[in-house]
């Protein structure tokens, strides 16, 4: 949707467009911003990394004869004296989805050149992400206090801790990096760098609202990974 027009180049929709793309002269994805194409390639490689983590978790959990800790008891939280299963995890899920929604709207308003709305929505996304990381830090410290370590835990199979810290830690790192970039981009949007086509810090590329979409792709991917972690690690 962001793709700039190339003079004299008409892109066909559907499968003929795909044939045109893959058989294209010099470059594939003609007219697509290179940053966007590269972000997709990066996300594809990241998908493989997270898949390897989750598959190794499946293999570890499936091959142990010791009983696996019950996640809905391990991650239960006391609310008003009553243990509620997965309470914190559910709140974290809703926070991340909320921030994904604000990001999607930020991309939309960015393309409409609505600078203020776009910047406020990116800031809201960043605050949502920060809340998520904060709750994850709380969850980690709670489990560490209860004696969960990568090599042992009081609930059951010893492998539980190493998979938990590895998978949620890697996801949390992605969220943290995303939050840093969201704050930077919120500042850049507020300052109007994308309206006056100001060049970036590490690149000679002219500023454009397509950068918001690229950042958005990364942020939605972080949310996407959480969907799988939530299903396989916390619910299964």
């Amino acid at each position, binding site marked *: 949707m962001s793709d700039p027009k190339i003079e004299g180049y008409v892109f066909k929709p*559907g499968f003929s467009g795909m044939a045109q793309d893959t058989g294209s002269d010099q470059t594939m994805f003609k007219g697509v911003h290179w940053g966007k194409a590269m972000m997709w390639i990066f996300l594809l490689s990241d998908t493989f990394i997270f898949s390897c983590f989750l598959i190794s978790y499946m293999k570890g959990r499936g091959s142990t*004869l010791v009983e696996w800790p019950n996640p809905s008891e391990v991650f239960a939280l006391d609310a008003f004296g009553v243990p509620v299963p997965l309470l914190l995890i559910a709140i974290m899920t809703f926070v991340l989805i909320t921030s994904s929604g604000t990001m*999607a709207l930020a991309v*939309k308003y960015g393309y409409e050149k609505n600078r203020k709305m776009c910047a406020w929505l990116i800031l809201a996304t960043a605050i949502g992400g920060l809340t998520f990381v904060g709750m994850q830090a709380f969850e980690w410290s709670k489990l560490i206090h209860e004696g969960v370590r990568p090599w042992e835990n009081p609930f059951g199979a010893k492998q539980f801790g190493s998979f938990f810290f590895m998978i949620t830690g890697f996801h949390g790192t992605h969220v943290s990096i995303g939050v840093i970039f969201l704050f930077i981009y919120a500042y850049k949007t507020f300052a109007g760098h994308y309206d006056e086509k100001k060049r970036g810090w590490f690149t000679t590329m002219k500023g454009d609202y397509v950068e918001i979409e690229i950042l958005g792709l990364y942020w939605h991917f972080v949310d996407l990974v959480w969907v*799988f972690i939530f299903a396989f690690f916390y619910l299964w």
Partner: protein
Amino acid sequence: MEETKKQEQTTTHKIGIYLWIWGLLFVLSFFSYMVDWYQFQGLLRWSLILLFMFLKAGLIMAFFMHLFWERYALVNVLLWPMTAIACFIFLMVAEFEYTVFTRIFYFVAGG
């Protein structure tokens, strides 16, 4: 297809579609939490978890990441490698079943 025609004129999508997807994601997350809340067990639990997971992932990819409106070349470049992951999952399922078998055979049954 309606959306494609509109986007050429306005270059962005209506806000309604984002709010709809947002709402659907909330509802689906709520449902998947309810799977744990009511402590469904066995095949019902796993199929519900997978169903809600794939619906959520599909909605995020199709609409929030705009894959629904993207060119087919990009969609294919992204989705075909997933078959490699599926193969890897099948391989590792065979592997852990074998590991469990040898552990039961040597540690429990005593060889």
